[in-house]
């Protein structure tokens, strides 16, 4: 029999061939979507590689998608090149602090990344920051809020975009105290949540109030009803949340389901737009701090343009996380250009000198702790939501004056960061 007619030319049946081809195809798609590096490449010759570490799995994945898209958009706005060289953006997962460290090592050692950007959660950013410091590679953390990242655990190679928990607290806590002085703290059992609990407890106790209850919640808790029953019994004036991403979404759905959203105000710092979009118009409630909002009329022209480009490309509004990824990546690309080099020491120096004028203040990374100085938005949920994306009423952009900003972020003398020299 002619093997070629039956598909057995090399001892492989047509069925096996088709099965194998389908399997390889599916595995390729699966690998592309999950584990293998996603490489966004401009053209072939001598590329500059930048490593992205954003979660592809887990509770923060919804925010991570917007963060990654913001980074990609910043690069696309520059024609996918810098210093007349193409740029490869290599994206790996950060499934856990250990996994994040391994992938950060891979990006630096195997992919030759000249800089890293990532850390969707504080615990992940802290893990990646340690690797960046070990390999002396600049690392931008646009989203992590734990105080220690640019405080006690600071290092010369880590730059953070998100204001730390202490700054968010100073902005939101006076609003909460205006509602009442009996607070209940419901915070996640990791660095971000612990910082929120410590900062808000300190604030209210220093201002004549009290914490009537506090619970530390494991990440990925699927049912909050037992916590909500405890809060209901404690009768606080305000509940201060410190749970992030999909955990916050789950909590707010159950908070509404158990009839609490109309009874006790809920407030939380540094939430993502996606957390509330996932709650839905029916159940969304609360008072929050945000870093950015696409409908804020005070957004500068270049940010409005970015939001329009994002809307056009993805057919949905840019989230705050889009802006954070975009702004962080922009600071990195501008710094590479200013340094005229990807050499680590020059790049770190350029990042500390990077500056943009935004709504009347100079936005920079401070030289003594590498914390970006920027304002925050205080926003509440609209009383009636008619657009499935437009949930927030921006109440204020704070801190207002340069003196207020310095007071909120603290001085070098107050900082826990003891930055070693390179």
């Amino acid at each position: 029999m002619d093997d070629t007619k039956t598909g057995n030319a090399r001892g492989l049946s047509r069925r096996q061939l088709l099965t194998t081809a389908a399997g390889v195809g599916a595995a390729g798609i699966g690998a592309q979507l999950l584990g293998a590096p996603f490489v966004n490449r401009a053209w072939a010759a001598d590329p500059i590689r930048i490593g992205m570490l954003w979660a592809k799995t887990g509770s923060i994945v919804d925010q991570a998608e917007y963060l990654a898209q913001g980074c990609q958009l910043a690069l696309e706005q520059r024609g996918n090149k810098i210093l007349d060289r193409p740029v490869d953006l290599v994206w790996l997962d950060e499934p856990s602090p250990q996994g994040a460290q391994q992938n950060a090592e891979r990006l630096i050692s195997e992919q030759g990344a000249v800089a890293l950007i990532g850390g969707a959660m504080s615990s992940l950013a802290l893990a990646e920051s340690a690797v960046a410091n070990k390999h002396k590679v600049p690392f931008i953390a646009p989203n992590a809020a734990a105080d220690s990242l640019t405080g006690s655990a600071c290092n010369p190679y880590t730059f953070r975009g998100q204001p730390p928990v202490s700054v968010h607290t100073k902005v939101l806590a006076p609003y909460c105290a205006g509602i009442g002085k009996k607070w209940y703290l419901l915070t996640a059992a990791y660095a971000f949540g612990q910082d929120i609990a410590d900062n808000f407890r300190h604030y209210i106790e220093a201002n004549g109030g009290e914490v009537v209850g506090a619970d530390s919640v494991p990440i990925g808790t699927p049912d909050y009803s037992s916590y909500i029953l405890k809060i209901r019994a404690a009768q606080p004036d305000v509940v201060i949340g410190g749970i992030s991403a999909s955990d916050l979404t789950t909590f707010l759905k159950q908070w509404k389901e158990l009839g609490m959203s109309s009874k006790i105000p809920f407030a939380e710092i540094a939430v993502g737009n996606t957390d509330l979009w996932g709650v839905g118009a029916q159940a969304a409630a609360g008072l929050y701090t945000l870093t950015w909002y696409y409908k804020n009329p005070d957004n500068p022209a270049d940010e409005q343009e970015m939001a329009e480009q994002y809307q056009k490309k993805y057919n949905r509004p840019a989230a705050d996380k889009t802006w954070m990824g975009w702004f962080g990546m922009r600071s990195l690309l501008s710094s590479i250009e200013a340094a005229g080099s990807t050499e680590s020491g020059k790049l770190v120096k350029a990042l500390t000198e990077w500056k943009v004028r935004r709504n009347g203040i100079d936005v920079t990374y401070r030289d003594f702790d590498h914390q970006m100085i920027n304002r925050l938005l205080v926003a509440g949920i609209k009383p009636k939501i008619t657009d499935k994306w437009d949930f927030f009423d921006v109440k204020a952009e704070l801190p207002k004056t340069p003196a207020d900003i310095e007071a909120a972020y603290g001085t070098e003398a107050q900082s826990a960061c003891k930055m070693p020299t390179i």
Partner: protein
Amino acid sequence: MLSMILSQAANGLVLGFLYVLIAVGLSIIFGMLGIVNFAHGAFFAIGCYLALTLGDMFGWWGVLLAPIATGAIGMIVEFVLIRRLYDKDPLVSLIITFALALFLEASLRALYGAAPQAYNVPDMLTGFVIFGPVLLTKYRLFVLAVTVLALAAFWLFLNFTPFGRIIRAGSRDGEMVGLLGINLPVVFSFVFGIGCLLAGLAGMLAGPLWTVNPSMAGAAIMPAFVIVVIGGLGSFAGAILSGLLVGLTTAMTIQFAPQWSGAAMYILMAVVLLVRPRGLLGERWERFE
């Protein structure tokens, strides 16, 4: 304090019943097919997404179709992939279904995006029911009622229908059932589909309470495995008993020692396995010895 404990217990039991619905499907797939199905949580997520999509398209009838559609997808997966694992080492099925879970999650992400989808309690089920000191929401009572009905129907089907007897016999001695002229592969496809249908039903019910995103499977699969292990691998009654125990233990730990709430069910599992290594109602199965 007594009213608080009773309310916590009631809410814990509702949570437990939801876990039971997920775990029973996992348990019967293991008990009857010998497959440790790591992708079970993904079918839970698929059920939720289908409820959302079909609900948007066809209203409430569409939502009710979601578990059936999930079961149908499960049967296709069994036909294409799972049946090739029956005679393989259990480790192979574990690895393959783990890969399947990742693939299904990535497929959901490719189709719907990573951002969570808004899926709320229907208006007619909002509000409370108060029994003395116990407060429950109407939706949680609805979840409780649907779960109990589904489990009762499944138990009746397994024990009092000819097809149910074939399934039970096939799980103990498939070769003998095959020799009697029964098409066992079709039976196994059906069993896998039923398991996925139950997971899809749980996903449909959990959607208004949990965050609906492609990663939601993760929140379902670990408690389900713990429940199956505590109850005894393959035991229907064991899964129900242990699901309720896990729900109650979690609720009471949150009340009295919240810092231990994440670990409570694992401690319970460790204690049960120390006392009864086969689980609470686990039996000796010749084919797994």
